[in-house]
């Protein structure tokens, strides 16, 4: 070293690091564009154009241009801010310059990563008002990559790869280039690559920044642009008066919907069946909140003190079933439109942060609205029933702090209170929903009853006329007959309506019963931990002692046991996975048919094993549940019976069932080895098995039990139906709670 007294080391990083960071920060291209548009906002633009050119296929002419009329950048801004990774001038200065003083929304300074996500090359054309030249900086990621690849081959030359006439470099970069040859021959540093820039003539009064991105990475279809449009509509609160304005225009030379500049504007919220909003009065320290007036059946507002999280205004739109239907007709079943509650700060979206997610189930539920559903799926509202807009400001809600991951707020007391408050306001609509449902039920029943009475009155009147004017009897009789027919039709309607109501109640019960998923989670984690514990101990034993001739027999035994335990674990996990989808599909099916089909599937196996199957199910029982869950119950029972029948002759598996009172009862029997009296309860326990040698893991009946309990049913071992030995399992599925 030249100066051993004064040695220093510098941080350096290569190109791939840059990209790695970028990929972590920007997860998809819609977010990337969103990010760039937000930067335009921060630059005091009043208009930004997003222009797609030739993006339907990837070719040299594919381009995405983002053009704003903001304050533009100087050479120094680009050198000292835009091209310095991790700085954000906006962080030091949270507001954009006068006269707009906007709250900066692109707080992380990651716009450059966004560019990288979209294309390989960008030209930054930027100009401040009053200057007569614009600056054009070209960053070409291809060159970075090429240099990275060529590195090994060109070491003896080892020149900085400079393209173009003028190199943009800071002092630090210069010195590192000089040092490179001696110190660093194998790594090409991100900071060493140079990007050319030049000045071009421009009109003096023009200002703003234009990013021209080429070398597009992915094609953009009209659907993709639609999604961008939709996301961009969320950027600005539809209610907070944004002054000066921030207008976004999208255009495309390929897609007719965007042939002309299309202004991005949130659709006014239509079709909502109910809506309500709350405001505040800071001088009087008053916050409004919603409550449901049970007597009048309407949502009202009342005044409360301003809450710890600060004053907020909120608009909530609730879509009941028919409103949703209308909405979906208009928006072609685009489910993502009714999308829950968004929080805007100073008119700009804060959360949920714009990250495009096509599948509604995968959207972040930051406010925890959907989490509550499990507790009461019929009455609580989900994010798919409401649109909510909450407006907060940096000034009034200073305790609500943006989280550094930009996808939520910092979890503090105030934010938790805010979430609670928002949810309490949504719950007001739940009360309304319950009220309306009840009212509707009574209405239908009442109307039918009244119709029936009216018809009966009518018949009576005819009879009176008949008595008084016997001569009219012949004329009146068809009328009377018809009226009686109407009467019986109405009565039938009334009973149908009652039946339907009952059916609804039954379905509701079965739905609710599946809410014990948390119990499953607990059960399953217990199962997994037990298995893992066993495996771990045995593996550790190997670790501690292997090799050792003295312990050879244990090694052999444990190797087999570990393998078997892994199989058990596999089964447990498969079982768990069957619950993993948050969207468990339900449908109506006939239990009798399902069992018949299942027995049919086993036909071949039954024949092989010489088993006679018998099904004697008297009543049809339509259940609304997950078909596969239900089939699992019987598959496990059949598998168990087959094992129990292994050593027997004249093998029978029988399933019988009928409806009794409020339950559907099923008996599942075999004439196998049977279950000992003292084991009747134990057989349903996890890992209890008597058939370990046949690959029994003690899971089958546990699955049976948990799945039946999920349906609020019960299962037990009862005295064997088939003699002399055998087992009978009784399953009871209730209709009512």
């Amino acid at each position, binding site marked *: 070293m030249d100066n051993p007294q004064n040695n220093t080391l510098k941080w350096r990083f290569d190109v791939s690091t840059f990209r790695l960071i970028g990929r972590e920060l920007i997860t998809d291209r819609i977010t990337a564009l969103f990010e760039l548009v937000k930067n335009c906002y921060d630059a005091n633009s009043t208009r930004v154009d997003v222009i797609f050119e030739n993006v339907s296929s990837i070719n040299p002419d594919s381009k995405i241009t983002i053009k704003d009329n903001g304050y533009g950048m100087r050479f120094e801004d680009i050198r000292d801010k835009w091209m310095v990774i991790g700085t954000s001038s906006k962080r030091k200065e949270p507001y954009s310059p006068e006269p707009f003083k906007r709250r900066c929304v692109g707080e992380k300074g990651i716009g450059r990563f966004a560019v990288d996500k979209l294309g390989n090359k960008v030209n930054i054309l930027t100009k401040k008002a009053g200057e007569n030249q614009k600056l054009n900086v070209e960053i070409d990621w291809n060159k970075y990559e090429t240099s990275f690849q060529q590195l090994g081959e060109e070491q003896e030359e080892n020149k900085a790869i400079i393209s173009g006439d003028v190199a943009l470099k800071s002092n630090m970069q210069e010195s590192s280039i000089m040092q490179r040859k001696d110190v660093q021959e194998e790594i090409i540093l991100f900071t060493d690559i140079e990007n050319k820039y030049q000045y071009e003539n421009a009109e003096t009064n023009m200002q703003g920044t234009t990013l021209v991105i080429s070398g597009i990475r992915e094609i953009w279809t009209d659907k993709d642009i639609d999604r961008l449009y939709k996301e961009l509509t969320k950027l600005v609160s539809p209610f907070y008066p944004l002054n000066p304005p921030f207008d976004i225009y999208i255009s495309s030379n390929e897609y007719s919907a965007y042939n002309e500049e299309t202004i991005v504007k949130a659709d006014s919220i239509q079709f909502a069946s109910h809506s309500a909003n709350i405001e505040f009065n800071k001088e009087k320290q008053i916050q409004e909140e919603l409550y449901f007036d049970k007597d009048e059946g309407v949502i009202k507002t009342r005044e409360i003190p301003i809450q710890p999280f600060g004053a907020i205004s909120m608009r909530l739109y609730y879509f009941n079933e028919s409103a949703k239907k209308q909405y979906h007709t208009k928006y072609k079943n685009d489910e993502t439109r009714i999308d829950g509650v968004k929080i805007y700060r100073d008119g700009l979206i804060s959360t949920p942060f714009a990250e495009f997610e096509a599948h509604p189930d995968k959207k972040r539920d930051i406010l925890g609205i959907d989490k509550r559903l499990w507790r009461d799926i019929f009455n609580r509202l989900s994010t798919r029933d409401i649109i909510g807009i909450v407006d907060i400001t940096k000034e009034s809600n200073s305790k609500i702090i943006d989280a550094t991951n930009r996808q939520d707020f910092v979890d503090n007391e105030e934010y938790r209170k805010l979430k609670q408050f928002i949810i309490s306001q949504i719950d007001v609509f739940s009360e309304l929903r319950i009220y309306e449902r009840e009212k509707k039920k009574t209405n239908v029943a009442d109307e039918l009853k009244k119709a029936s009475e009216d018809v009966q009155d009518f018949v009576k009147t005819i009879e009176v006329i008949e008595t008084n004017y016997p001569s009219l009897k012949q004329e009146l009789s068809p009328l009377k007959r018809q009226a009686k027919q109407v009467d019986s039709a109405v009565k039938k309607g009334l009973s149908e309506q009652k039946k339907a109501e009952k059916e609804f109640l039954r379905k509701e019960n079965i739905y609710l019963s599946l809410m014990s998923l948390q119990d499953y989670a*607990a059960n399953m*984690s*217990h199962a997994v*931990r*037990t298995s*893992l*514990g066993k495996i*771990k*101990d*045995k593996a*550790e*034993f190997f670790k*501690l*002692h292997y090799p050792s001739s003295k*312990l050879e027999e*244990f090694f052999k*035994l*444990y190797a087999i046991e570990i393998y078997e335990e892994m199989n058990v674990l596999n089964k447990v996990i498969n079982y768990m996975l069957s619950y993993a989808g948050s969207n468990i599909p339900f449908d109506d099916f006939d239990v009798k048919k399902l069992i018949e089909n299942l027995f049919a599937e086993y036909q071949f196996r039954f024949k092989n094993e010489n088993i006679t199957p018998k099904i004697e199910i008297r009543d049809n029982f339509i259940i609304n549940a997950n078909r596969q869950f239900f089939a699992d119950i019987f598959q496990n029972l059949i598998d168990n019976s087959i094992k129990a029948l292994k050593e027997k002759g004249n093998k029978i598996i029988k399933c019988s069932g009928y409806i009794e009172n409020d339950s559907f009862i099923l008996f599942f029997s075999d004439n196998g080895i049977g279950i000992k009296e003292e084991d009747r*309860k*134990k057989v*349903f*326990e996890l*890992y*209890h098995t008597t058939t370990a040698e046949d690959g029994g893991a003690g899971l089958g009946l546990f699955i049976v039990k948990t799945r039946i309990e999920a349906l609020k049913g019960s299962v037990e071992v009862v005295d064997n139906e088939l003699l002399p030995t055998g087992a009978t399992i009784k399953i009871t599925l209730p209709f009512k709670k």
Partner: protein
Amino acid sequence: MADSKLNIIVIDDNVKKTDPLLVQLQLNFKDANVILKEKAKDGLEYIIDNLNSKMIVLLDYDLGVGEPTGTEIFLKIREKTALLYVIIITAKLIDDIPNKELVTYINRDALAVIDKTTSLEDKITLVKNAIHTLDVRVDCVLEQWISNHSEDEQNDPYLTTTTGETYTLKDILMEIRQQSAFGHKMERNIMMLAVDLLTRGKKQVSND
């Protein structure tokens, strides 16, 4: 006479004789009896029958449907003796054990509550610690000493206080175990004597 051999009792319905834990215990503590009881009732019976020996119990928290829980067994053990060490092992998350039961473990002096997935080595370390603590506890040392003497010696008055009360060795042991004021004082005196003997040579136990 009491059996001076250490008994390590594992009460767990989910464990086989060939389980690594049992094998490892036997490997580590060659002189100990490693005993597996799959049924809680059998385990408890064994403990009660062997109250005179040094014992460490590894007790499964969840002993299966229809069986008493680990906590119930633990309390039953404690009704009989405060002397042996109990290590509770659970496949549950510790968070899922009701606080009330955890308080019971602390107040009734369970040595540890550990996760089933704890490594063999850590489990062995715990047992080693338990053995060591057993070896140096005053009442244990005393009990061990008493059990090495004849019935007559055990029942002979050993100590008379200034107020005229006499105590046999067994009485002293009882007082220590019951943690009475006298027991506390005796325990302290024995310790002091031991230190004294170590540093200065023989001295009479003060009995004021």
